[in-house]
């Protein structure tokens, strides 16, 4: 295993004054990676990324080099590289700072990625609410065109690359790659059935690779320093460094960068430790859709494989840490309301399931829960998990199943006491009791000509 601990690699330029402008960026090694990439064949570029072991930073952790190697070639269709900058997973705030502070890193990475997969057109699909990041990226793209890094003749190489900044309009689901492509085509952002995969039939039915901001911004560094340099950090299965977002009840929440494999306890320590007088009770290791872990998991090394071994996922690298002062049922309810709101409505289990899960969790949190509700939640989750086009439905079940596994006694206390034991939510007695209409009752109502 390589070195661990806090590092400043991708975030090294964050505090350089005016590095968002092209001249300062160039003074700090900017566009050197592209210069080298222009001397290499596409297959060499893909081999380099493969050798680095870089895994996608958007949540799934799929190897970036492998993804690029799947992009269909020689079809006669244009090939597209799409950057997923629709950062929206609760707890995640790593791509926005990168785009605001070091936007040219993404622009350079996009051009290099384009060379690797034989694409002449890139799209940055940016979350609409990130107005400032959009301003910075638009300015960076303008500068890159003016200096000849973008356009019909990239750095005099005779190769073409164009880059379009596309600002979205507010829908978490568009962070799912096929929903993103539908949205970029001007549709409702709803996931597609796969296969066919975007590598052969993506944007406009053309070969497409969709990659996260951080993954793309890492590639120019690989060109400058080599694949081996990257593997000095992390483990065999999770090499390199990772931008990490630490939030919740820590003293200094913020954006940190760590070598993969750093123990979670050390990461929380780097963020100033817990607020005074508080101790870690539970945390989400990689965003709201990654199952919660508890204080006993604090010594886990932060790698894809170790977190997975503990029953969760590294996700986007968003560590949300909570203490015994925070009601786990309330946090779960809020996450569930999020997924209920953000379900695109395409698949019934996710659309309807989210509604019912919220209803049941709300009645538990407000002191109206019943003992059988706990098993009802698990049963519903079992009927949602794995039954939708995309992973949003699966993500919806993660906080519920994991919190019920680790903190069932919290749920039981809510039911027993008829209120939130921590008093986070005042008990309510005015909630309408909604019951799912049983099929036989509905049929009887129809047969009877009315309700």
């Amino acid at each position, binding site marked *: 295993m390589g070195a661990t601990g806090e590092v400043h690699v991708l975030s090294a330029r964050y505090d350089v004054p005016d590095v968002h402008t092209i001249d300062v960026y160039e003074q700090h090694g900017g566009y050197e990676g592209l210069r080298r990439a222009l001397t290499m064949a596409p297959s060499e570029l893909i081999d380099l990324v493969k050798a680095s072991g870089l895994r996608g930073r958007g949540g799934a952790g799929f190897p970036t080099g492998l993804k690029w190697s799947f992009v269909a070639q020689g079809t*006669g*269709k*244009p090939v597209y590289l799409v950057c997923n900058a629709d*950062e*929206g*997973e*609760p*707890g*995640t*705030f790593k791509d*926005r700072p990168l785009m605001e502070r070091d936007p040219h890193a993404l622009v350079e990475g996009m051009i290099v990625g384009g060379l690797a997969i034989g694409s*002449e*057109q890139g799209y940055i699909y940016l979350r*609409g*609410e*990130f*107005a*400032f990041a959009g*301003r910075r990226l638009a300015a960076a*793209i303008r500068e890159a*065109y003016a200096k000849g890094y973008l356009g*019909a003749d990239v750095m005099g190489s005779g190769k*073409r690359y*164009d880059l*379009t*900044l*596309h*600002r*979205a*309009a*507010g*829908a978490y689901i568009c962070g799912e790659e096929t929903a993103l492509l539908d*949205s*970029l*085509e*001007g*549709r*409702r*952002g*709803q*996931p597609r*059935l796969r296969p*066919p995969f975007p590598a052969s*039939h993506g*944007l*406009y*039915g053309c070969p497409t690779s969709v990659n996260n901001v951080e993954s793309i911004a890492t590639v120019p560094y690989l060109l400058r320093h080599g694949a081996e340099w990257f593997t000095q950090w992390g483990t065999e299965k999770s090499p390199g460094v990772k931008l990490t977002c*630490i*939030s*919740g009840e820590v003293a200094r*929440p913020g954006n940190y960068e760590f070598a993969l494999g750093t123990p979670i306890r050390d990461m929380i320590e780097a963020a100033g430790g817990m607020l005074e007088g508080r101790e870690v009770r539970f945390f989400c290791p990689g965003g*709201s859709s990654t199952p919660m872990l508890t204080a006993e998991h604090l010594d886990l090394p932060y790698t894809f494989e170790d977190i997975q071994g503990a029953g969760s996922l590294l996700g986007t690298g*968003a560590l*949300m840490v*909570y203490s015994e002062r925070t009601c786990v049922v309330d*946090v779960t309810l*809020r*996450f569930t309301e999020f997924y209920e*709101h*953000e379900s695109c409505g395409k698949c019934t289990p996710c659309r309807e399931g989210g509604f019912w899960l919220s209803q049941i969790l709300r009645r538990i949190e407000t002191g109206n829960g019943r003992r059988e509700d706990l098993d009802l939640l698990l049963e519903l989750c079992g009927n949602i998990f794995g039954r939708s086009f995309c992973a949003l439905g699966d993500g919806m079940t993660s906080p519920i199943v994991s919190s019920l596994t680790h903190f069932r006694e919290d749920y039981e206390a809510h039911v027993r006491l008829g209120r939130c034991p921590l008093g986070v939510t005042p008990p309510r007695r005015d909630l309408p009791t909604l019951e799912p209409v049983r099929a036989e009752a509905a049929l009887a109502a129809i047969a009877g000509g009315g309700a």
Partner: protein
Amino acid sequence: MPITERTREEALVLARRYPMARSALLPILHLVQAEEGYVSEDGIALAAEVLGLTKAEVASVSSFYTMYKREPFGDHLLSVCTNPTCKIAGGQAIYESYVAACGGHIDRERGVMVEHAECLGICDAAPVVQVNYEMYGPVTHDEAMALLEAAARGEVPASNVSGEVPPTFRAVERELSGIDDGVDEHLAAAALRQAQAAVPPAYRSGETDIPVTHPGGDPSGHGGELFRSAAATTEGGR
């Protein structure tokens, strides 16, 4: 109010940026909000006409996304994050006080709309309020209420995160449309080139590989009318 000719022309410019015109629908709807302050009937009609879609198709898209507002409210949109980290830091209380202070979600007299937002991707500054998509955080309850008052007076201070003073809602929507990004010629030339590829881009339905064409627009399904007219006026498509 009917949409101006300038907006119509700008919508066409946006459409020419993409090898398939429909891709410009989200940017055009932002442009509509820049002119109308919300997605108006006239705006829907404009997008439909420019892209060769039906108004129902446009409305089905605009209603899917939370940033497209369905009624006018004025110059300032305040979005309060109520996801767990912001909620436990006081975001939920701020949101509820906002709604109480505005007597609902829209206070047309003061030109303010308040909404609860899902995670705004800045949890280290919890609790966070956005004014016209500019971030403020962490804010105390009092600071948040002062921000609402400042917005109602039209004197919003600079963001403590970006250092920028947020433009009005319409101005930020114009920005989001991308119309002023300044690289149009390049993008139009690139789009035209792609539309003329050996096997050009095609509309496809979400689930099959069958190209979908619409009788009203993009008649070939491979670029369409807009590109024929663009080809006539644009040089450098090679």
